[in-house]
């Protein structure tokens, strides 16, 4: 819906834009911060993931409302947890919008995808038996409408009445439908592969800790 034309929401001054970016970036760092030091490999992997998905979003931008980021956020949340999923969503929104067009709507896109990542972390999309495709498809369908709904709030600048907002939402339904079909396709084609890609291998320290711990119990 946010791609509908003629509506941009409140206009930001250059200073407000910078502040907005700083706030978003701070959120991402806060979400990624951890008391224990992360291995450099983890950080590189996260950076690669964010850049790749941002690039795909930029490349696919000419196709109306087909959003690969939505399913990606869902699965990153499912595999890496709510904090890293939300950080991923915020960074992808910021970086891709740097090329597509930055503005007030970036906040809502970041919030939309972050909330989807959090939902993904709670929905048990990946269980001990593997990737649950049916549940992922259901979640991606709901995520399409949820994301578009959240982003639609970006048009509220005090001049739009409730009725106009509802009409705006109604006009966007075909776009929501397209987002939904796109999400389903991504989930079916790439969901399993992407989930395995995100699967965390236990580090040597973790293996050692597990082994020692189990021996201690035995002893």
């Amino acid at each position, binding site marked *: 819906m946010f791609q509908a034309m*003629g509506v941009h929401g409140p206009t930001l001054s250059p200073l407000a834009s910078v502040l907005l970016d700083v706030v978003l970036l701070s959120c991402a760092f806060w979400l990624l911060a951890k008391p224990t030091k992360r291995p450099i490999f983890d950080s590189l992997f996260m950076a690669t993931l964010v850049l790749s998905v941002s690039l795909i979003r930029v490349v696919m931008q000419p196709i109306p409302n087909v959003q690969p980021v939505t399913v990606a956020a869902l699965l990153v949340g499912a595999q890496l947890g709510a904090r890293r999923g939300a950080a991923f969503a915020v960074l992808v929104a910021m970086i891709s919008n740097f090329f597509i067009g930055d*503005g007030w709507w970036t906040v809502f896109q970041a919030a939309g995808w972050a909330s989807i990542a959090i939902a993904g972390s709670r929905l048990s999309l990946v269980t001990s038996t593997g990737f649950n495709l049916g549940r992922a498809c259901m979640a991606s369908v709901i995520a399409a409408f949820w994301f578009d709904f959240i982003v639609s709030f970006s048009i509220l600048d005090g001049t739009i009445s409730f009725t106009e907002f509802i009409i705006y939402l*109604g006009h966007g339904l075909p776009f929501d439908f397209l987002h939904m079909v796109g999400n389903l396709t991504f989930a079916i084609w790439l969901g399993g592969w992407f989930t395995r890609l995100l699967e965390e291998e236990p580090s040597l320290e973790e293996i050692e800790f597990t082994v020692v711990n189990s021996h201690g119990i035995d002893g």
Partner: protein
Amino acid sequence: MALLFVSLLLVPAIIAQESATPWDDTHSFSWEYDFQTGYISTSPLFTGEQLLVRTSGNDEPAVTAFDLTGNKIWHHSNAASTNNDMSPLLSIQAGQGQCGSWPDMVLVGWTSGLIEALAPSNGTVLWSTQSEVIGWGVTGQLALDGEFVVIPTRQGVGQYCLADGQQQWWTETGLGWRNGVTVDELGYFMGDESGHLWHLNRTGNATSHALQLGKIRHAPLVTQAGILIHAQAAAGSTIAVFNPSNATLLQQIPAGPSPAIPSVRGEYVVTGDSSNLRRLHCTNVCKVIDVIPFHTNGEIGWFDDGQILAPSNLPESNWGIFFIHDQENLTYSPIDVGLYGYGTAAPIQFSVGLTSFTVFGNDQSILRVFSNIEEVETSSLEEFDWGVQGLIFVIFLLLGTSCAFLLSGKREWFWRTSSLLALILVLLIFPDLSNQWSKSFDEQFPEKSSSEEWNEQWPDAWLGTQIVIFEINGVEHSIGGFVGHDDVFSLTQAACKELEIELTSDLTGIGWYVESIDGIEGEGWEFSVDGSKGIISADNSIVNTTSIVRWTPV
């Protein structure tokens, strides 16, 4: 795999690009004939393998016949016809009636009041009859009605036998000029210089309606909505729809000065004037569906292939060609046929064998003939669109593999192929789906707010019309007086043209996006219609007949 996937998704964007073939590329110049003096004020006529052209405004007003290679076959003149002869030639096929039988012939009405039936093969006068002259004689379009021809004379209308030219009756009307006759089930319609619309039954009993809209200088058009006329006033014109059964004016659409002769095909009507060429769709009402800035004041050629060709009646001007795409959009491009200057005669098109001919003539009294050989095999190869064919192949491939996977129990791959197929299909129908949805939505839930108010400083002529306001560098630029625009984009284009403001836009998958206005791009432009913010693309946002559109930079 990922690359292939992305490529497949981009295919619809590739096939969305259309290629247009310029008229100049498909037509070649055949021959021309320079009459040296006078004007070609009305359309040539092709009949009996010969091309007939009438010239006037010189010492020897005449009808001249040529073969298809440009050789002059015969020449018939009428020195008494001293004014511009603009009554179109009328071809009559051989037949018989109560008055007798008649051969193939061409009827010619002269400004001297003379009406002649000529043999197309050699120009022999088969019969002639004289009508009244009050300064001018016959100037309008004659009409065929069974075994009779109905002739608009200078101050009346008469019915004449085709067999011998015998007058059946003549009824006095108002003074007429270029006022052709239209035949309908109940009789005949015609207009006059005082703005009366006349209806006559087949025995000559007349009823007149004072429309008070201006001079009616064409044959009225019979449409489903009513009788359509384009009346000429002192400073403009009015396209009007009249209901003859209860004598009421149903519609009045303001238009530009000096109207052209309107033309009808089925439910569609084309009108012209010194400002615009319009296309109307007439069912229960006549609705303007296209307005294209173009200066035309004479005849408009509308051909079987849907193309419209009209002369631009300006000094140093040329012809305009208009293409209708799927009955939806009318596009315009100028064509250079090597004739420049004023012109009011419509070109004609006809085919002989595999060759189609287009013939132009204008006020320079030069006739130019173009031909186009229809190379069926070549054109079919040129029209082969590999993008579309490839997409169709992919769709069928996905459909087939989906079925195969379903039947073989490979559910995972069935879901993969069918989801991709669904996505491609949704992307293909999406532009139409989105447009139709928006239109239906707007119709179901019309916006009621109207905070954009009339500015007292605006001229009264803008009252009841469409108005556009541009906020450029803090200054409002307003323009009004527009009619017939259905969407914001069309209205905005017209306003920019009128204000000579540059407008750049880009077509995206969800409609036209306005990139810059008057060179100002900024962070985009947004619009409101009657005070309500636009929430979809400008071309999908509907405007009504009195909408005020405001464009503001973001």
